[in-house]
C-alpha cells in the first residue's frame, strides 16, 4: 500500500499558514507600484529608466551573489524590492550610474557579506541610497519640477525641504511656517492645489496656506517614489490588512516625529516660538511616509517584538527630527532609519517577551 505513495516525511506542524517570504515581498512591491507610476507620470518617462536601472542592477547583483554561494534566491523577490526602493529614493534627474552603484552596494555589501536575505542588520536600500548620497551629493540633491508645475519654473529646482533649508541659511524674516514662506517666495502651486485649499479654507474655516494639497497628492519635486503621500498610504492599506506591516513602527515613528515638529519646529522654521511647528509640511515632504511605511518596517532590520518596534519607531522619529531640523542634510529619513538599524540588536536584547512560567521580578516601590 505504501509503495508508490512517495510520502513526505517532515517535522510537525504538518500544516502551515498561507503566505511565504516571496508572497510578502511581491505584495510590498505591488503596493508600491501606484506611487511609482505616479512618479513616472509627473517626472517623465526618463524616471522609468532610473527605476529599471536600479532594479536590474539589484537583480543581477543578487543573481551573481547567489551563484557564488550556490543558492537560488532570485525568486524570493527581495532583490527586486530593494532595487525598486532604491529607484524610489533617487531624484528624477539622477545619472544612471548612481542607482546602479547604489543597488550593487546594497545587495553585495550590505546584504550578501552578511549572508544574504535575513542576515543584514542594515536596510540595504537605504544604506545604498546613503552611500551614493554621500558620494555624489550634487546630483543627489538636484530636483525636477513635476509636469504640472514646469511651465512656471525651470527644469531643475530645489525640493520644498531643500528650499526651506537653504532658505533657512539666508532667511532672517519670520513667515509663519515653511509652507507660507515658500508660498511667499513664489514657489509654484498647481491649480488644483489652489482650488482645493481655498475650498477648504472657505468651507471649514481653516487658514491653510497653499501647497499642502500638492504635497499630499505628489505635485512637488522630490525623489521618484516619495512624493505621493496619498498613493503610498493607499498602497499600505493592503499591507496592513495582510498584517505584512503592523502599526507599531509607522505610528510611533510618525507620531514622535510630528510631535517634536509641532513643539520645536517653529523655533527654526517659523517665528521662533514653541508649539508652532508646521507638522503637515514636514509629514508630507521628504519621504517620511515612504520611510515610515515601507522602509522602517523592513522586518529583517527592525525589532522582533511590538515593544521593540515602538522604541525603534520612536527613535527613528527623534533622529529624523534632529537631522531634518538641525542637521545639514535636507531630509533625514534614510539616515535616521539606518541609524536605528544599528540599535536593533540592542533593542531586541532588552525587549524580550515575557516567558511563560517565569516570575518577572516585581519592582519594589
Amino acid at each position, binding site marked *: 500500500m505504501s509503495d508508490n505513495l512517495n510520502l513526505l516525511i517532515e517535522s510537525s506542524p504538518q500544516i502551515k499558514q498561507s503566505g511565504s517570504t516571496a508572497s510578502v515581498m511581491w505584495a510590498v512591491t505591488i503596493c508600491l507600484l501606484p506611487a511609482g507610476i505616479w512618479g513616472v507620470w509627473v517626472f517623465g518617462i526618463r524616471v522609468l529608466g532610473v527605476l529599471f536601472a536600479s532594479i536590474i542592477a539589484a537583480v543581477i547583483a543578487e543573481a551573481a551573489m547567489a551563484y*557564488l554561494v550556490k543558492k537560488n534566491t532570485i525568486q524570493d523577490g527581495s532583490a527586486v524590492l530593494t532595487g525598486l526602493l532604491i529607484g524610489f529614493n533617487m531624484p528624477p534627474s539622477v545619472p544612471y550610474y548612481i542607482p546602479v552603484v547604489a543597488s550593487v552596494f546594497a545587495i553585495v555589501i550590505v546584504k550578501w*557579506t552578511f549572508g*544574504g536575505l535575513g*542576515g543584514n*542588520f*542594515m536596510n540595504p536600500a537605504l544604506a545604498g541610497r546613503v552611500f551614493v548620497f554621500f558620494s555624489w551629493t550634487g546630483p543627489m540633491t538636484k530636483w525636477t519640477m513635476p509636469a504640472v508645475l514646469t511651465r512656471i519654473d525651470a527644469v531643475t529646482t530645489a525640493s520644498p525641504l531643500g528650499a526651506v533649508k537653504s532658505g533657512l541659511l539666508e532667511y532672517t524674516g519670520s513667515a509663519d511656517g515653511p509652507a507660507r514662506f515658500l508660498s511667499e517666495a513664489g514657489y509654484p502651486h498647481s491649480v488644483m492645489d489652489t482650488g482645493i485649499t481655498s475650498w477648504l479654507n472657505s468651507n471649514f474655516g481653516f487658514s491653510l496656506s497653499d501647497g499642502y494639497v500638492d504635497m499630499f497628492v505628489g505635485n512637488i519635486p522630490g525623489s521618484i517614489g516619495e512624493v505621493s503621500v496619498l498613493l503610498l498610504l493607499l498602497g499600505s492599506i493592503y499591507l496592513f490588512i495582510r498584517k505584512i506591516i503592523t502599526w507599531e513602527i509607522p505610528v510611533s515613528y510618525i507620531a514622535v516625529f510630528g510631535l517634536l515638529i509641532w513643539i520645536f519646529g517653529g523655533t527654526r522654521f517659523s517665528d521662533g516660538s514653541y508649539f508652532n511647528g508646521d507638522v503637515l509640511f514636514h509629514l508630507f515632504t521628504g519621504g517620511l511616509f515612504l520611510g515610515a511605511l515601507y522602509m522602517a518596517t523592513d522586518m529583517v532590520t527592525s525589532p522582533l517584538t511590538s515593544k521593540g518596534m515602538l522604541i525603534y519607531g520612536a527613535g527613528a522619529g527623534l533622529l529624523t527630527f534632529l537631522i531634518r531640523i*538641525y542637521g545639514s542634510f535636507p531630509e533625514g529619513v534614510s539616515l*535616521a532609519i539606518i541609524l536605528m538599524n544599528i540599535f536593533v540588536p*540592542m533593542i531586541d*536584547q532588552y525587549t524580550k517577551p515575557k516567558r511563560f512560567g517565569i516570575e518577572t521580578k516585581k519592582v519594589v516601590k
Partner: protein
Amino acid sequence: MSYIGIIITFVFINNFILTQFLGLCPFIGVSKDVESAVGMGFAVTFVMAMASIASWIIYHYVLVPLDIVFLQTISFILVIAALVQLVELVIQKISPALYKALGIFLPLITTNCAVLGIALINVRNDYNALESFIAGIAAGLGFLLAILLMSTIRAKLDSEWIPKPFRGIPIAFVTGGLMALAFMAFDNALLNNLLG
C-alpha cells in the same frame, strides 16, 4: 564651546571610532561579545578621563612654563602608560574575570590611539581643565557606545551564515563601515544649530 557641546561632539559628531579612526584595534578586537565590550568601554573611558586630567596638568604646569612643549608626546605617553599600568594592576587584583576578558587588550589600552589622542586633541583645542576632563569622558563614552553597538550586532551575526572569508574580523570591519556611514548623519552643523 559649552560642556554639552563637547559631550555631543565627542560622543556623536567626532566619535573617536566612527569618524576619527582612533582606538580601532580594541574596537575590532574586543567587540566579539557584549560583556567584554562593555568592560573595555568602561576601562577606556576611565583611562581617557584620567589621561585628560593628567596631561592637562603636565602641559599647563610643566611643559608650557618651561617652554618645552615639544616634549608633549613623550611626557603624555609616559604618564598615560604609567596610569594604565596602575589600572591594570588594580583590575587584576579586584576582578580577575574582567582581567581575563580584556586579555591582552588591557596593556594595549596604553597604546590605544584614543587615549593619547584625547590628550593631544585637548591641547589642540585649548581646553581648560574641566573641559579636558569632560572631553575625556565624552570621548570614552563615544567609544563605549560604538563598541557596545558593535558587540550587539556581532552577537547577532554569530548566528547568521556569513560567507566564510568574511567571518570574524572582516565582517566586523564591514559592520563598522556601515555604522560609520550612518554616523555621518551627525555633523558639526547639526551641533551648531542644535545649541543655538
